[in-house]
């Protein structure tokens, strides 16, 4: 199979207006990827699927990524070919920002395999896929408002008995401690039967 750079050149020749760049992977895996601009992404996807030399008929994996540092959300598609048994070709799509411009074209019309995975990305990251046949929350309940996989997601403070807190958990737990702090672990009153008072 051709290299990522060759593929990019071929795609640029086929889709002259498209912005396509190679994201190099510095790690030992060296799985480089193609960063596409959202608008021609579906046409490129169809081309990749149908091109006789590539025939990437199988979309294995759809991943959402939150990049607060880059100020965008990203979707990564891992494509393989079942017919020619090669791959992966990795596609990346990025939203404009993380707040209001979070739409990307859905690739579900190209590969059915994206259906549930894109719903999951929508649920957990809040990326809106246009022309997705059934874009609803998949893992969380419908009334849920947040996108929990984003890096800045704050979990609900459903504190309970945290006997072994440290780090962030301790910080959270401390918010629920009674006002009068007692040195050590001892706690008067109802907890007298709890292990907290054990020596």
């Amino acid at each position, binding site marked *: 199979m051709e290299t990522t750079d060759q593929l990019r050149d071929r795609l640029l020749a086929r889709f002259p207006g498209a912005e396509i760049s190679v994201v190099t992977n510095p790690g030992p895996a060296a799985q480089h990827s193609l960063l596409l601009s959202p608008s021609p992404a579906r046409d490129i996807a169809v081309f990749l699927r149908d091109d006789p030399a590539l025939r990437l008929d199988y979309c294995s994996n759809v991943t959402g990524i939150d990049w607060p540092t880059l100020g965008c959300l990203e979707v990564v598609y891992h494509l393989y070919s079942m017919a020619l048994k090669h791959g992966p070709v990795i596609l990346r799509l990025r939203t404009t920002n993380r707040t209001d411009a979070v739409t990307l074209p859905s690739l579900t019309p190209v590969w059915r395999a994206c259906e549930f995975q894109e719903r999951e990305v929508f649920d957990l990251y809040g990326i809106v896929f246009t022309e997705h046949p059934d874009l609803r929350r998949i*893992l*969380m*309940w*419908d*009334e*849920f*408002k*947040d996108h*929990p996989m984003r890096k800045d*997601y704050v*979990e*609900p403070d*459903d504190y*309970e*008995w*945290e*006997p072994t*807190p*440290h780090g962030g*958990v*301790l910080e959270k*737990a401390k918010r629920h*401690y*009674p006002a009068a*702090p*007692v*040195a*050590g*672990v001892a*706690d008067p*009153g*109802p*907890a007298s*039967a*709890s*292990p*907290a008072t054990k020596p």
Partner: protein
Amino acid sequence: MSDFATTLPTGITEPDRDELRRQGILLTSLEEFYNWGRSNSVWPLQFGLACCAIEMIAASMARFDIARFGSEVFRPSPRQADLLIVSGTVTKKMAPQVVRLWNQMPEPKYCIAMGACAISGGPFKQGYNVLKGIDRFIPVDIYIPGCPPRPEALLHGLMTLQEKIRGQKLTGPDAPRHLRADTTCDYPVPEFGEHDLEPPANSAVWQAPTMMRKEKGQA
């Protein structure tokens, strides 16, 4: 009576009970007969949540055979079940259904929290969608720690439950829930909120002791 424990959860020991039996109090005999019956016929609800459910199934299979205790009748309908084995992680999305199932079961009913997740959320405790223990919403009789507990541990939990049932007094303040007028067998089902379950715990069931840990600034 099982051989494995001499002290019952309620503090009555076997010799005590023998003594009571000798006195031939009718109520005691009735009570014991009733408790004998229901403790030996604990039919679990066919209800699995996660990994522990596989060990629960394994416990009903040939190697461990929960049938020996008369408990292999896993009823698919909560109406005919006596025991809710919460076998696995209860997520916040699932919690209302579990409470509903519990409400649909007729009294006397028992609940076993099997495995770390059901007790406290376990290893997934810090997850945003994981309920930190089913005892926030329904009363739990037996806790079986482990991740997952061995099938033998489930059998041990079942025997502990049987011992607990046998030790129950039918009258007085220690009477089981279904024989007391001041308790309800119906528990409020939490609603899905915008960020969390509402309420996140049922304060009538859930009273955790406060435990404070200080900052680890030393050394």
